[in-house]
């Protein structure tokens, strides 16, 4: 069974090929069948493989399909590598992926480019599986770029609107910056260690490099660059909110559940390298903390339902980074999984809201939709509870583990923990702000249609609700992957700490209720304060990051490109031409047709020759 692992990416790839080659000729039913079915098959295979792998008790399994290229020592292959970590990832991708595909069959039913949508989606799943199953970094890079491409294609799916295209390009280019850094990391690793096979690489790194050595730090930093790009962490996080331009299932699948967590996966995969570079690892934690706080602030100020969720995603991945940074590897992966569940749920719920309200995104134009959109309401309620880490929901367990891991760290651990707790407070506020504003209060009159949610949309939502509630009890089999790095001794944590960690999100929910549920406090009054208003504006613009990047990079580049449109080097050659023409003009003037002048030139030449002859 394990040797069928190659089928995992193959099914979606086949789906993609069928959909592309049919070029829109298939009926929507068939498209749905192919699009969602291929993922379903993959999930089935994944599940079977998972069962067999776990039963076998082996630490890993690998199989080579073929050698990709062989150039000297450089011999990456199309080799699939399965261990606990990739197993978890593979299940999340196929499982959540299947649910979202299923949901999409309903959500996208009215779209003329139905088939194109599923072809991209299938390609995405194939790439993502490639990414997590790759046994070497080059193959991983293939998947890594593949998902980036699909992300681009899907963000710009509704290409009519140039804004969508801009968002898509922004996403691709910003992540490409990270990817390039990662590619350089690969070059460095290969130049130093002579292989890019992940396991060999980690072994060689451990054997050859001392902790904190310059090469290790450089390599880890370069890989981190890739990770922050893909996972939308500081300083490359700006693309994710704009990426919400794509259809909502995309946001659920790519920009919440799977692709954006690839950075987390990468760091977890190469955690040995990061352990060899403790400063970089700590940097990961600080990046995570900074990102989660910044995004938290911003999420509280947004009006667009999807942007709120997007910032929340950034923030939650910040938690994962925090976890990675403090060495709580499995906690991070655990949070990755639970986040996939509840964030997919939230996005799909949001999708239902948006679809039902004719593509209304502004939460302040909704309100009181509890009755009108029951499925969405429950999705949001449960999703938000999990997101806010309400006790015993899935998010609670995973976030708890991360914060405890932070606390366990010597030195800056306490501060990291504190920051994480503050972040949790914000999470409570913004997640329930959304719930209260959209589903409680007065109903806005102009949207009073029925909820659009067929079985294919509601079904996935229910499953995800269950997973969001109970996902915290799943045990992920990653010990063998991280066993040698993780602190094993149980930290004794006081009840007070536990209390704080339970109470803070609740406090956040309470604040949200006071402002938006019961209206005991008024946000408008707060805004009357100029300082608050300024802060709001600042946070609303996500700390001015977009503007900053625009000024620093985008505008100068565009300006220079336009300025030098004619290519200054080409113009230098133009100078040669001008000189030649001038020379011609000058010399042609001498040809004035006068015999006397010609005779003079003859004598002049003679005198010149004589003079030169004397001088030389």
């Amino acid at each position, binding site marked *: 069974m394990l040797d069928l692992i190659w089928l995992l990416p193959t099914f979606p790839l086949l789906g993609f090929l069928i959909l592309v080659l049919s070029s829109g000729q298939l009926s929507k039913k068939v498209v749905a069948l192919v699009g969602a079915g291929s993922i379903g098959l993959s999930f089935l295979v994944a599940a079977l493989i998972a069962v067999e792998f776990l039963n076998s008790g082996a630490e890993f399994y690998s199989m080579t399909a073929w050698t990709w290229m062989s150039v000297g020592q450089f011999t990456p292959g199309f080799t699939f590598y399965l261990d606990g970590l990739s197993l978890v990832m593979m299940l999340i991708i196929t499982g959540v992926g299947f649910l979202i595909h299923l949901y999409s069959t309903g959500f996208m039913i009215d779209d003329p480019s139905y088939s194109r949508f599923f072809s991209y989606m299938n390609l995405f799943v194939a790439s993502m599986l490639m990414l997590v199953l790759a046994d070497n970094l080059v193959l991983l890079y293939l998947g890594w770029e593949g998902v980036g491409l699909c992300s681009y294609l899907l963000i710009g799916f509704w290409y009519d609107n140039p804004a969508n295209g801009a968002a898509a390009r922004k996403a691709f280019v910003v992540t490409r910056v990270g990817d390039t850094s990662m590619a350089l990391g690969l070059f460095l690793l290969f130049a130093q260690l002579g292989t890019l096979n992940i396991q060999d690489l980690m072994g060689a790194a451990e054997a050859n490099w001392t902790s904190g050595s310059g090469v290790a730090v450089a390599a880890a930093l370069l890989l981190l660059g890739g990770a922050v790009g893909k996972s939308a962490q500081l300083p490359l996080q700006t693309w994710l909110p704009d990426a919400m331009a794509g259809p909502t299932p995309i946001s659920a699948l790519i920009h919440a559940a799977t692709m954006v967590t690839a950075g987390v996966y990468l760091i977890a995969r190469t955690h040995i390298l990061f352990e060899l570079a403790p400063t970089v690892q700590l940097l990961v934690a600080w990046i995570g903390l900074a990102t989660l706080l910044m995004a938290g602030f911003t999420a509280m100020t947004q009006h667009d339902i999807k942007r709120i969720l997007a910032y929340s995603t950034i923030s939650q991945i910040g938690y994962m980074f925090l976890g990675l940074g403090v060495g709580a590897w499995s906690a991070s992966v655990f949070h990755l999984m639970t986040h996939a569940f509840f964030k997919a749920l939230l996005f799909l719920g949001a999708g239902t809201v948006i679809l039902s309200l004719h593509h209304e995104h502004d939460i302040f134009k909704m309100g009181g939709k509890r009755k009108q959109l029951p499925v969405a309401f429950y999705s949001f309620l449960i999703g938000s509870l999990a997101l806010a880490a309400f006790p015993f929901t899935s998010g609670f367990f995973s976030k708890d583990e991360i914060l405890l891991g932070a606390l366990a760290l010597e030195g800056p651990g306490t501060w990291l923990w504190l920051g994480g707790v503050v972040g949790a407070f914000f999470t409570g506020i913004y997640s329930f702000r959304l719930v209260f504003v959209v589903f409680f209060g007065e109903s806005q009159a102009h949207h009073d249609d029925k909820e659009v949610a067929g079985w294919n949309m509601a079904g996935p939502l229910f499953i995800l609700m269950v997973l969001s509630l109970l996902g915290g009890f799943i045990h992920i089999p990653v010990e063998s992957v991280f066993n040698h790095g993780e602190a094993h001794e149980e930290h004794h944590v006081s009840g007070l700490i536990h209390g704080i960690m339970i109470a803070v999100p609740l406090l956040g929910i309470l604040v949200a209720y006071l402002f938006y549920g019961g209206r005991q406090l008024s946000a408008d009054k707060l805004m009357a304060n100029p300082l608050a208003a300024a802060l709001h504006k600042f946070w609303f613009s996500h700390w001015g990051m977009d503007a900053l990047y625009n000024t620093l990079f985008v505008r100068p580049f565009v300006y220079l490109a336009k300025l030098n449109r004619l290519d200054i080097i080409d113009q230098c050659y133009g100078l040669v031409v001008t000189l030649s023409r001038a020379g011609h003009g000058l010399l042609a003037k001498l040809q004035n047709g006068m015999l006397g002048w010609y005779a003079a030139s003859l*004598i*002049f030449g*003679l*005198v010149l020759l004589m003079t030169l002859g004397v001088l030389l």
Partner: protein
Amino acid sequence: MTILFYLASAIAIISTLCVILQTNIVHALIYLILSLLAVAVIFYVLGAPFAAVLEAIVYAGAIMVLFLFVIMMLNMGQHTRDQEKSWLSARGWIAPGVMAGLLLVQLLSVFAQIDQDLSGQRIDVMAVSGLLFGPYVLAVELASILLLAGLVSAYHLAKK
């Protein structure tokens, strides 16, 4: 004899100067003939009587008569003098004068470095004709072809 050389040289130079300065073309031609005759004298002094005779007969005689023919034919008499004067502006002399002067200075400075006397040996007709009908016999033939070429050209060009 030496004095004759310098005298003839002086006459040749002065009369040549007159040729290029003259505005009356007939006068100029006469100065030119004078100059050629003076050169013929130089030839004689330098021991080349044959050349001297030819210079006088062919050059000063035949060729110059040709010029005279043309001048008469074109009727370039007194009335062209004013035209000549107007063509000869003072400015027009500067550049040629400077260039020719420069050339002359260069030539003279080179010649001044030579310290060599002429042999003064007399080369008479016999010696020249010995050469002409010996090693240079082909030259004579070729000269005739040269004249033929000139003849054909002149014939074709000058006809009405």
